[in-house]
C-alpha cells in the first residue's frame, strides 16, 4: 500500500484534570498523486491531525504509516528515509523561517542533514528556488526581506528539497493577500500535476478546497463526519454539519441569507474538552432526534457515494431494524 495512511488515530491533551480529545478516532489516507482537502472549524482537530501525519506529534493510539512502514520509530524518532518522504508547509511563512538565517541557508539545511548535497550546493538551491518561481538571487536574503507570497514559495522550495512524495500544507495561503494566493496555489498545483506529489491540504477556505481537491474530508470535534469525492460532497452533502458549513460560506449571492434550505448554524462549536454524548454534533443539528444524543453514528457509505456519520439523513440498517419512532 503506498502513500500516507493514518488508522485509528487518537490524540488527547491534558491540562490539569481536563482532557481534550483533539483527535478521537480518525482514519485518513493520502495517496501519491491525489489532493485531499481537510476542512473543519477550530477545535475540530485538523491541525493536530496534520502534525501527526508528518511526525511532529505522536498519536496516543493508532498507526501512522508511509508506504507500508511506520512513520515513527518506537522511540519517537524517525528514520531519515521516512523523514524525507513527507514534508510540511506551515501557515505563517514568517514564523516558519529562522529570522537569523537566509532562505538559502534554510533550504541548505535539509539537504545537508540528509547528505543530499551535490558538488555545487548553490546550484541545487538555485534550482529549487526556480522551481517555485523565485529568482535564485533571493537566496542570500533574510525572511523579512521577502513578501509573504515569496516567502511561502520559498517554504515550498524548502519542503521540496528532499523530494518528498507527500506534502502536508496547513492553511498555506490563509495569511497571504488574496491576489497573491493564486501564485502560491499554482505552485502546489504544478507540483501535483507535473510530479504526482500527494497533497494533504488543510484549510478553512472551502472555495479553494472545492477547486483543487480530489477528495475532501470534513472533521468536527475530532472525528471525520463526512468524506468522499470532492464534487460529490459539495454538490450533495449528506452530513448536516457539512451542509451548514457549505451554507455558511458567503457566496456573494444575494440569496445567501434568504435561501430557505440553507440554515446558518446556531451556537458555537463546543470545545474538545467537553464532547457531547452520542453524536457529537447533535446539540447544534437541525435534524437531531432523541436517538442522536444516545448513539454515536459510525462513518459509513451513503447512497450518493460518499461516507458520512449520520443516522438521520440515511438511517443505518440497525437503526431501521431497531427503532420505533423518528
Amino acid at each position: 500500500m503506498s502513500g500516507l495512511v493514518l488508522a485509528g488515530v487518537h490524540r488527547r491533551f491534558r491540562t490539569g484534570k481536563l482532557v481534550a480529545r483533539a483527535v478521537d478516532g480518525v482514519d485518513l489516507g493520502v495517496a501519491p498523486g491525489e489532493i485531499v482537502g481537510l476542512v473543519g472549524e477550530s477545535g475540530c482537530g485538523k491541525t493536530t491531525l496534520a502534525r501527526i501525519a508528518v511526525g511532529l506529534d505522536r498519536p496516543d493510539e493508532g498507526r501512522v504509516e508511509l508506504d507500508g512502514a511506520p512513520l515513527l520509530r518506537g522511540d519517537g524518532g524517525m528514520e531519515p528515509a521516512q523523514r524525507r518522504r513527507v514534508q510540511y508547509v506551515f501557515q505563517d511563512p514568517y514564523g516558519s523561517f529562522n529570522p537569523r538565517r537566509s532562505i538559502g541557508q534554510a533550504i541548505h539545511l535539509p539537504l545537508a542533514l540528509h547528505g543530499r548535497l551535490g558538488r555545487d550546493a548553490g546550484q541545487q538551491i538555485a534550482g529549487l528556488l526556480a522551481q517555485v518561481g523565485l529568482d535564485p538571487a533571493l537566496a542570500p536574503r533574510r525572511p523579512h526581506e521577502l513578501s509573504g507570497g515569496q516567502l511561502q514559495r520559498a517554504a515550498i522550495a524548502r519542503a521540496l528539497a528532499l523530494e518528498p512524495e507527500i506534502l502536508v500544507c496547513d492553511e498555506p495561503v490563509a495569511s497571504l493577500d488574496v491576489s497573491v494566493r493564486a501564485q502560491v496555489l499554482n505552485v502546489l498545483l504544478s507540483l501535483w500535476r507535473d510530479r504526482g506529489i500527494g497533497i494533504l491540504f488543510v484549510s478553512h477556505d472551502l472555495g479553494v478546497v472545492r477547486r483543487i481537491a480530489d477528495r475532501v474530508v470534513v472533521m468536527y470535534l475530532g472525528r471525520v463526519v463526512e468524506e468522499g469525492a470532492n464534487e460529490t460532497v459539495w454538490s450533495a452533502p449528506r452530513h448536516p454539519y457539512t451542509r451548514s458549513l457549505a451554507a455558511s460560506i458567503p457566496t456573494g449571492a444575494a440569496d445567501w441569507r434568504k435561501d430557505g434550505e440553507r440554515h446558518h448554524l446556531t451556537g458555537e462549536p463546543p470545545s474538545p474538552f467537553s464532547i457531547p454524548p452520542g453524536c457529537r454534533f447533535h446539540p447544534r443539528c437541525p435534524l437531531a432526534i432523541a436517538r442522536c444524543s444516545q448513539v454515536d453514528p459510525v462513518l459509513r457509505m451513503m447512497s450518493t457515494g460518499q461516507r458520512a456519520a449520520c443516522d438521520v439523513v440515511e438511517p443505518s440498517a440497525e437503526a431501521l431494524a431497531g427503532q420505533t419512532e423518528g
Partner: protein
Amino acid sequence: MVTPAPEETTAPPPLAVDDLRVSFAARGGDAAGTLAVDGIGFAVPAGSILGLIGESGSGKSATLLAIAGLLPASARVEGTVRLDGRSLLDLPERQRARLRGRGIGMIFQNPGGSLNPVLTVGSQIDEVLTVHRGLTGRAARAETESLLAKVGIGDPRNRANVYAHQLSGGLKQRVAIAAALAAGPSVLLADEPTTALDATVQAQILDLLLDLVARENLALLLVTHDLAVAASVADRIAVAYAGRIVEEGPAAEVVRRPAHPYSHALGQAALPFGAETMRREDLLPELPGRMASAGGSACAFAPRCPLAVARCRAEVPLLTPFGSGRVACFRAGEVGA
C-alpha cells in the same frame, strides 16, 4: 476632488468622507513620511452597508482609523470627514472626541481586543452608557441587558457578569458589537469583524450585522479583504488599491460585472464557492507582482494590469461616474467577464 455617490437624500448621510489623505510620520532620519491614503472619498447612507475592500497596503485600515480618530498623533490627516453633516477634522480635539464617541461605534478584527480583561462585560457596557447617555446604576444595567439581548446573547442577565476570557470568539464579538451600539451611534465601523471567526460563526455575525443595520437604521462601513463577505452583505462596494478608490458601485455590479481590471482580478482570485467551470489541472488565474505604494503619478495598478496602455503609466485615472457607480480607469468596462 471626489464627489459623493449619486444617491441624494435630504438629510446629510451619517458618514461622508471626501478627499481623505493620511500619511504616517517618518521613522529614523527619513525626511518624507509614508502616504497611506491618497484621496479616498465615499458616503454611507443610513440603513445601508458599504463594503470597503482592499488588500494590505490599500489604505483601507488607515481610512477606518482616520475616521475613528485612532491614528497615532504623528500621523497627518487631511480632507473632510462628515458625521451627520458635521465636519469632524475641523473641530478642536475635545469636541471631536465627543462627537465620535456618541456618533461612531467601532468593531475590531480581534474579538476580545476591545474588551477589558479585568472587567465583566456588563460593566464595560454600563460604562459606555454612563459616559455617553448619562445612565447609571440599575437603569444602565437594564439597558446593558437589553443591548446584549439585541445582539443575540441568550440569558443576558447572567451573561453580563462574565469576563471576556470566559466567552468564545463569536460571543466576544457580539459583546463588542453591543458595546459599540451602546452610545446610540448613527455610524458603525467594522474592521474585518469576522475574519478571525470560524465559518459558521462568521455567518451568524454577518446575519446579526444585517439585522442591526436594518432595525437601527445604521450606516455600516465594513472594511474587509474578503470580496465574498462584502458581496453577500453590502449594498455598495468600494474597492481600494494603493491608497485610492478604484471602483465603487452596487455590490452585485462590482462583483458580477466589475469595470476595473483589479476588481475583476479580485473576483477571480476569491474563488467563489459556487459554480465551477475550470478543470482541476488548469492553473488558477494569477495576478503577478505586488501592490505599489500610494502616491504615484500614474495608475498604481498599471504594472500588474493586463489592459495597461501608455496613458496608464503617465497619468492618474480619476474616479469618474460609470454605470450606477464610479471607476478610476482609462479603460473602464473593457475587462472581460
